[in-house]
């Protein structure tokens, strides 16, 4: 039986189920295959902090959203068009997001009295009109899976566990994704357990066949490949891209990479990834705590390594004193903060960008340090290289901000050619011999104000550094009032001077006559960009710019801000960049601030921009939209 195939431009699918149902794995496999067929895509994994919340419970729901299209896209999608809900709890927590008229596939077998109760349903939603606005497909996924595996010698529990592969097979049919790669992947993953491999492959194929043969589904869909810039692509998450960026920075600088870290969500995957690349000479040190992680990294920097510490906000709080020491001893050090919801333990698995001011000011004394932020998963790679450039050129700790959304979100990534990567080797200049009668560890390079990097083991450069204030040039301990003021100014001037090496603000203003500028930083890049498209498609004029460098800011930023009647800065915090911009440029920057633990939708940002456009004509009460 052949069914019709409908062509779509873009689709957003969300897989939702119990955290033990394998939804992340299902989503990741669908993503891989989608990347293979050439669609542009963006993903948003959304899972609870608990490893295994009680089965069937509302807090235990794990979701994975994937947006794919035949054109370049910027976000994981505002609203799913298709929701796969593996149990009542998943339906309850996700239905509100499903687009009106969207496709809902539920695992009917999971709608037992017990599961309905756990999901706080007083009656089965399949039997009332609460699902009336959707195209509902009630599929007994569990029993179909078990049925497909009836020939196999496996426990019923093991058979049931393959139900996520049945769902994946069904979705693969619905969106015309081939199965071969997934079959190969399953066979490789379960190489040591061939029974399980066979069960998963059988379930996958059964799901596909079910879609093809049952009369429930009238037709399937197709999303044509996107026209992305020419090149070789792979799928990449932010944490993986950041890890690769660090390895690339080590290779391109000729320095051995040393990572000192402590496990913390959502940054641990960088530690995991780098620990796998020992054949690149990468040393990873899982320390006893966050402080030891940065301590060891700073020791390794002193000893001549490209040193990194990776963490999330709570870890940065613990590392604060050591970061101050790194500022004082002026050694290159990369500090990665994969931000999550705060304060305190906050929302470990959810995204936020509320550690900007912590990075700027979260230390005692005047302790400036450069800050860069990644805009999308692939950008984590480039930003790691940029952070290394700054650290090595200016001999300073550099803070690199990513966040939970970038860390786990995936997108196609055009693999760079090695020759196109920046060459950092010239920036590594260990002091070869004393720079005076005796070695003067704080005699600076006149251009960069960097002090010499004197590697232990070098004859004649024996010297002492530390956290006490140092006399200019000699580096000896100094309590002299004028010297302290001078050194404070020098440390600031060195960081300010980095601005000379960063590009001017790139403003995207197609017609050149927009009066509203929307300015972002970090992972809001995609949603802001998509929102600007929406506004422009509706006839609005809006200019858009994005900051990679947050300290120092690009030299022309003040001038750019002054060109617009209104400036809107959407942030997943309560207005941290806005505070800095207002203080620095005395510009009445407006904010759009939400901390939902999720990335912005392009729709809400488009509304915020539209609000700013409307305010141009009604300037009297121009509060930022709520």
């Amino acid at each position, binding site marked *: 039986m052949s069914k019709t195939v409908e062509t779509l431009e873009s689709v957003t699918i969300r897989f939702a189920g119990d955290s033990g149902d394998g939804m992340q794995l299902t989503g990741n496999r669908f993503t891989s295959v989608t990347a293979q067929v050439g669609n542009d895509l963006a993903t948003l994994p959304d899972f609870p902090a608990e490893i295994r919340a009680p089965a069937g419970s509302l807090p235990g729901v794990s979701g994975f959203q994937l947006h794919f299209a035949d054109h370049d896209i910027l976000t994981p999608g505002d609203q799913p068009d298709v929701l796969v809900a593996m149990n009542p709890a998943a339906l309850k927590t996700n239905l509100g997001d499903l687009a009106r008229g969207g496709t809902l596939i539920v695992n009917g077998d999971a709608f037992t009295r017990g599961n309905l109760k756990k999901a706080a349903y007083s009656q089965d939603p399949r039997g009332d009109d609460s699902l009336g606005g959707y195209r509902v497909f009630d599929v007994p996924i569990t029993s179909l899976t078990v049925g497909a595996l009836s020939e196999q010698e496996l426990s019923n529990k093991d058979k049931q566990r393959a139900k996520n592969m049945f769902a994946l097979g069904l979705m693969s049919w619905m969106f015309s994704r081939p199965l071969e790669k997934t079959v190969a992947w399953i066979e490789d993953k379960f190489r040591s357990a061939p029974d399980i491999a066979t069960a998963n492959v059988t379930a996958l194929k059964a799901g596909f066949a079910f879609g093809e043969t049952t009369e429930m589904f009238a037709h399937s869909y197709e999303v044509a490949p996107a026209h992305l810039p020419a090149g*070789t*692509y792979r799928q990449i998450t932010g944490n993986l891209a950041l890890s690769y960026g660090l390895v690339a920075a080590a*290779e391109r600088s000729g320095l051995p990479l040393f990572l000192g870290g402590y496990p913390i969500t959502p940054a641990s995957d960088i530690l995991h990834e780098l620990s796998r690349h020992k054949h690149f000479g990468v040393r990873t040190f899982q320390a*006893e705590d966050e402080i030891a992680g940065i301590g060891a990294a700073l020791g390794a920097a002193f000893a001549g390594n490209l040193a990194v510490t990776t963490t999330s906000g709570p870890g940065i709080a613990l590392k604060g004193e*050591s970061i101050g020491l790194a500022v004082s001893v002026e050694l290159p050090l990369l500090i990665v903060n994969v931000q999550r919801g705060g304060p305190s333990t906050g929302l470990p698995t959810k995204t936020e960008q509320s550690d900007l001011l912590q990075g700027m000011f979260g230390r005692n004394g005047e302790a400036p340090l450069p800050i860069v932020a990644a805009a999308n998963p692939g950008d984590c790679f480039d930003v790691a290289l940029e952070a290394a450039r700054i650290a090595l050129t200016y001999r300073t700790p550099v803070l690199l901000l990513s966040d939970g959304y970038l860390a786990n979100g995936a997108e196609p990534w055009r693999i*760079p050619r090695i020759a196109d990567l920046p060459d950092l080797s010239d920036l590594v200049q260990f002091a070869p011999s004393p720079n005076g009668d005796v070695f003067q560890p704080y005699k600076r390079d006149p251009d960069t104000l960097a002090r010499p990097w004197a590697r232990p*083991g070098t004859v004649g450069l024996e010297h002492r550094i530390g956290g006490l204030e140092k006399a200019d040039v000699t580096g000896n301990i100094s309590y002299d009032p004028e010297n302290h003021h001078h050194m404070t100014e020098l440390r600031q001037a060195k960081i300010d001077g980095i601005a000379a090496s960063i590009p001017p603000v790139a403003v995207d203003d197609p017609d050149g006559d927009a009066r509203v500028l929307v300015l972002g930083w970090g992972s809001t890049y995609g949603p802001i960009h998509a929102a600007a498209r929406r506004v422009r498609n509706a006839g609005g004029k809006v200019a858009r710019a994005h900051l990679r460098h947050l300290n120092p800011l690009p030299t022309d930023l003040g001038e750019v801000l002054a060109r617009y009647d209104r400036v809107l800065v959407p942030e997943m915090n309560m207005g941290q960049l806005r505070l800095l911009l207002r203080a620095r440029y005395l510009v009445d920057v407006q904010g759009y601030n939400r901390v939902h633990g999720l990335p912005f939708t392009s729709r809400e940002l488009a509304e915020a921009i539209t609000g700013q456009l409307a305010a141009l004509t009604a300037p009297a009460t121009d509060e930022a939209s709520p």
Partner: protein
Amino acid sequence: MTDTAAPKLSRKDFSSDQEVRWCPGCGDYAILANVQGMMPDLGVDRERLVFVSGIGCSSRFPYYMNTYGFHSIHGRAPAIATGISTSRPDLKVFVITGDGDGLSIGGNHLIHALRRNVNLVIILFNNQIYGLTKGQYSPTSELGKVTKSTPAGSLDYPFNPVSIALGAEATFVARSIDTEREHLAHVIELAARHHGTAFIEVYQNCNIFNDGAFAALKDHPEANQIRLEHGQPIRFGADHERGVVMGDDGALRVVDVADVGEDRLLVHDAHREDASLAFALSRLAHTPTGPTPVGLFRQVERPTYDGLMEQQLVDAEQRRGRGDLARLLAGSDTWTVGD
């Protein structure tokens, strides 16, 4: 590590040009002179020596050594030193710390460095007081200590640093005294030649805030210093008339040799794999007010952390070949988009 016939250095070569700024009469001077004095015999090139410290009086030490030095922040020296030593096995790294720095704010780093067996020499100056902050009780102060922060006497039971080190799986644990020049030099040299983390507790007098804390051992060395020597029966006293025996209950006791006979004396075995006997010795005196063991409690061989890490890198490269960045970036799942 010296491979050429360079002129032998002297103590002066290891003194930096910085003026030493400890209080006159501080026990730190003697330790500094001792370390500087034994350096020429160590046979390690000066540029390969790194002294790392935290915060406190003792932590000023690196400024006075004409070697590489890093005066860091309170308690963190073992962590920083671990990064140096682990990434640069060619360096000889010393950690200088105190009872507050090493056992209070930095206790966590200390125990983890010890269990990992990173190539480090950790010298803990124990003066049983906070000196730099002007006289608060420390984690080694005796119970009931009256200080500025404990006018009614301290309430917390003190640590025994040697017991801690042994409990933390240290492979080298020793104790000495600031004023015992030869003994201290010998212990430091043993430590410096050890592979792994070597921990030395040095009783150090703070003549300003805790003068005389170790008077029992210093004024009556024969009566109160139990000098541990590997392979020798443990005995002390002006005429070696006292000794240590293991009772039937397994506990160690100080006895008169005449009462038990020489044959019953415990023979010190510093190289025993099992640390329990060394631990029992450390319990003979919880605070040094009576007979107290000094010397090498324990020295055993165990692979070092930095050595093991280096080996993993070598093995990985042998197995997989030197990493190829282009291959890494490409991964296994790629697709090509044409022009």
